[in-house]
C-alpha cells in the first residue's frame, strides 16, 4: 500500500468507531420513539395519520439542512434554560439522524401491526388475552418481519446520512470525504466512501439475515445475525473505549488553509505534550460558538468574519483598531482569548496577469477602474452578491465589460488563459503566486481587513503552557509563505498533505 492510502487508512478506525456510535445511537433512539408510537397509531387511525405525516415531512428536509437547523435550535434552547446544552458535535447529529430514521421504522411498524390478520386478533380476544398479552403473543410476532424491514431501511439511511454530521462537529467517516473534497485528495474521499458503503452493506446484510430468520421462524438465523452485529459493534467501537484525558480539540473550517493551520497548531501542541484531535470542515457559523462553549479549544478565524458575522458591525476601522476591538469584544462577551494575528490576510483581492500589469501599468484599484471598460471580470459564485463588491464599487468607478462566475478551481485557469482579464481572488491562495498574478492594491481601504487571527477557548486562555506553545505563531506567517503552503495542498501534481505542509510552514516561521 502506498503512502496516501496508508495515511487515509490510519484515520479510519477512530472515525469508523465514531460513525458506528452515532449511527447506532440514532437508530436505537428512533426505535425507542417509533415502536410505542406505532402501537398507539395501529390502534388509532387519527394518531397514525398525524405521526406518519410528520415523519414524511421531516424526510423532505435535506439531511445537511436538518443538521444545520439543529445548531441554532439547540443554541436557543441552551440560552433558554441558562446554558449547558451543547449545540456542537454528538447532540445535534444524534437528533437530526434520529428524526431521519423515524419514517421507515414508523411506517413499517404501523403497516405491520395494522396488517395482522383480524381473525388472529379476534381469537386472542376470545381467549381472554389482555391488550398487552395480545401485543406480546400475537401482534408483535406477526408484525416483526415488516418492522425489521423498516429498521433495516432506517439503518442504511442513517449510516449514509451520518457522513454529513461532520459539518456540526461530530466525527464520522464524513471527515475523510469532506477533507478530501476540499483539498482534492481523492484517496481520502474514496476511503471515506468505501468504508461507509462497506459499513452500510454489511449492516444491511446482517439485518436482512435477522429479518429472514424472523420471517421463516428460524431462531438460528436471528441468533447468528445478532451475534455478528454485537461482535461488530464491540470491535468497531473499541477505539472509543481507550480513555484519554486532556485532549485538545482543534477546529478548522472547510478549506485547505484551515486544514494546514490546524495541523500547524496541532503539531506544536503535540510537541508541548498535548494529545490532539481535529474537527475539520466546520461551518463558519458553528465554529465560533463551538469555541466559546469549549467544544473546541483553538482555531483560526479572520477578523472581517468576526467583525461582520459575530459582532454585527458594518462600520470600518483601521486594521490595528479593528483587532483591538475584536480582542475586547470576544473576551468580554464570550471569554474567548484572541491570541493575536498570524501575520497574513485572506481577503478578496483583485488579481491580473503580469503582462497586463506591466503593459497597462496597473498597480492599484484606481488603475483597474481606468481600464475596466475593456476588461472581462471573473469571480466566484457569490462575490457579486456580497457587501465587499458593493464597497469596492462605492469607492472606485469600476464598470467591467462583462462578468462571469466560476468555481474557485476554474477561476485561476480562466485568468491565465485570457478568458477573463481580472478575478476576485482570495489573497492567500497559492494559485496567485504560482501563476505570477499581480494583486492590485486597495489604496482606499474599501475591502474590510480579513487578518488571520488565532482564537482560544475560555479555559485555554489561562493555560500558560498552551499559550506558550502557540505564541510563536503570532505575526510569524507571511502571506507569501501561506500562499506557497496552500499551493502545496491545492496543486494537481506532487500534492502534499495538510500535515506535511504544516511541518514545512513551521520551518518558515518569521522570528
Amino acid at each position, binding site marked *: 500500500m502506498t503512502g496516501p492510502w496508508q495515511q487515509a487508512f490510519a484515520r479510519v478506525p477512530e472515525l469508523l468507531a465514531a460513525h458506528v456510535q452515532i449511527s447506532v445511537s440514532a437508530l436505537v433512539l428512533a426505535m425507542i420513539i417509533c415502536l410505542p408510537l406505532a402501537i398507539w397509531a395501529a390502534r388509532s387511525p387519527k394518531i397514525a395519520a398525524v405521526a406518519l405525516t410528520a415523519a414524511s415531512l421531516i424526510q423532505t428536509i435535506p439531511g445537511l439542512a436538518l443538521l444545520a437547523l439543529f445548531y441554532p435550535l439547540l443554541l436557543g434552547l441552551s440560552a433558554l434554560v441558562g446554558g449547558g446544552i451543547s449545540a456542537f458535535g454528538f447532540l445535534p447529529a444524534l437528533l437530526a439522524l434520529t428524526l431521519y430514521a423515524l419514517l421507515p421504522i414508523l411506517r413499517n411498524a404501523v403497516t405491520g401491526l395494522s396488517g395482522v*390478520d*383480524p*381473525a*388472529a*386478533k*379476534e*381469537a*386472542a*380476544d*376470545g*381467549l*381472554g*388475552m*389482555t391488550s398487552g*398479552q395480545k401485543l406480546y*403473543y*400475537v401482534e408483535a*410476532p*406477526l408484525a416483526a418481519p415488516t418492522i425489521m424491514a423498516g429498521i433495516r431501511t432506517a439503518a442504511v439511511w442513517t449510516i449514509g446520512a451520518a457522513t454529513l454530521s461532520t459539518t456540526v462537529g461530530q466525527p464520522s467517516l464524513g471527515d475523510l470525504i469532506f477533507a478530501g473534497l476540499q483539498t482534492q485528495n481523492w484517496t481520502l474521499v474514496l476511503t471515506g466512501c468505501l468504508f461507509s458503503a462497506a459499513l452500510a452493506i454489511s449492516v444491511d446484510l446482517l439485518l436482512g439475515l435477522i429479518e429472514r430468520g424472523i420471517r421463516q*421462524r428460524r431462531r438460528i438465523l436471528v441468533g447468528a445475525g445478532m451475534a455478528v452485529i454485537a461482535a461488530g459493534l464491540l470491535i468497531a467501537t473499541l477505539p472509543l473505549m481507550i480513555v484519554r484525558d486532556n485532549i485538545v480539540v482543534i477546529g478548522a473550517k472547510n478549506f485547505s488553509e484551515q486544514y494546514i493551520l490546524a495541523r500547524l497548531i496541532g503539531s506544536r501542541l503535540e510537541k508541548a505534550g498535548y494529545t490532539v484531535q481535529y474537527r475539520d470542515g466546520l461551518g463558519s457559523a458553528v465554529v465560533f460558538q463551538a469555541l466559546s462553549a469549549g467544544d473546541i479549544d483553538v482555531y483560526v478565524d479572520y477578523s472581517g468574519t468576526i467583525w461582520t458575522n459575530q459582532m454585527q458591525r458594518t462600520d470600518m476601522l483601521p486594521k490595528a483598531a479593528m483587532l483591538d476591538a475584536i480582542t475586547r469584544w470576544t473576551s468580554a462577551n464570550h471569554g474567548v482569548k484572541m491570541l493575536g494575528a498570524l501575520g497574513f490576510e485572506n481577503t478578496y483581492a483583485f488579481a491580473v496577469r503580469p503582462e497586463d500589469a506591466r503593459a497597462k501599468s496597473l498597480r492599484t484599484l484606481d488603475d483597474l477602474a481606468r481600464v475596466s471598460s475593456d476588461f472581462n471580470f471573473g469571480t466566484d459564485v457569490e462575490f457579486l452578491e456580497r457587501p465587499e463588491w458593493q464597497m469596492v464599487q462605492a469607492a472606485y468607478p469600476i464598470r467591467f465589460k462583462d462578468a462571469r462566475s466560476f468555481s474557485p478551481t476554474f477561476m485561476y485557469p480562466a485568468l491565465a488563459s485570457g478568458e477573463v482579464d481580472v478575478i476576485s481572488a482570495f489573497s492567500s491562495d497559492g494559485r496567485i503566486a504560482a501563476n505570477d498574478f499581480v494583486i492590485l492594491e486597495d489604496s482606499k481601504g474599501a475591502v474590510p481587513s480579513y487578518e488571520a487571527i488565532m482564537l482560544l477557548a475560555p479555559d485555554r486562555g489561562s493555560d500558560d503552557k498552551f499559550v506558550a506553545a502557540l505564541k510563536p505563531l503570532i505575526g510569524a506567517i507571511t502571506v507569501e509563505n501561506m500562499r506557497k503552503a496552500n499551493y502545496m495542498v491545492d496543486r494537481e501534481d506532487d500534492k502534499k498533505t495538510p500535515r506535511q505542509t504544516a511541518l514545512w510552514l513551521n520551518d518558515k516561521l518569521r522570528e
Partner: protein
Amino acid sequence: MHVSGPSISLNKVSRHYGRVRAVDSLSLEIAAGSLVALVGLSGSGKSTLLKMINRLVKPDSGTIRIDDEPVDSIDPHILRRRIGYVFQNIGLFPHMTVARNIAIGLELAGENEGRADCVAELLDLVELPRDMASRMPDQLSGGQQQRVGVARALATRPGLMLMDEPFGALDPVTRDNLTDQYKTLHDKLGLTTIIVTHDMAEALYLADRILVMEDGQIKADATPAALLSGNVGEAAEALVAIPRAQAAHLIALSKLS
C-alpha cells in the same frame, strides 16, 4: 374430563349500531347443559347476541348472567378465559405450533404443569393424530384447523362454549363429520353450548333447542321436532321450509330409481 355447563340468563338486553337495533330488548333463559342453536338470516342479530355473552360486544342495556353471576362483574379477559369461543375464521396463530396454539389458554393462566399431556388428550378428543402437535397451522387442512380451534377453546375446560358459524367455511363432508363429533363431545363433557348458524338443517340435526332470530328479536323458540311440525311462526317456517323441501325432493328421487 367431565364438566357441567352453566345456565345463562339474559334480561332485556339491547345493542344498537347507529339506528340499527341489532339486539332489541331481548330476554332469554338457557338451561345448564343444553345445546342451543341460534338461527336466522344475516343481520338478524344472532352473532351480536352471542358475542355479548363473552363481552366481545358490550350491550347498551340489560343484564346477562352466567350461573346467576352478571358478566360485567369481572374483568372481560377473566370472563373470556372461562368461556370457549370458536368462530368461522378460526384464527389459529400462524407463528405457533399446533401444540402451542392449543395450550395458549393454559399458558395465559400460568398452568405450566402437564401441558403436553393435556394437548395430547385434546387432540384425541377432536380426533386428530397426536403427532400433529408439532406442525404449524398452515400445514393443516381447513377441517383440521377448525378441530384445533375447538381443542384450543376446550383447553381451559370451560363449561360454556360459544360457537359462531364454526363449520360454515368447511366442505359439506367435513362439516357433517365435525357437527356429528361435536354433538358427541358436548354430551360427553356436559357442556352448555350456544351455536350460531344460518343453516337450519344443521340446527335441526345438532341442537336440542332452536331459537330463530329476526330484527334483533327471537321469533321462534322450539325443539327441532316442534319446529318441523309447524305452527311456530312465519320467520321459522320460512327457514324450515328449505330443508323440508330438499328432504322431500330427495325422497321423491330415491323412489324413482
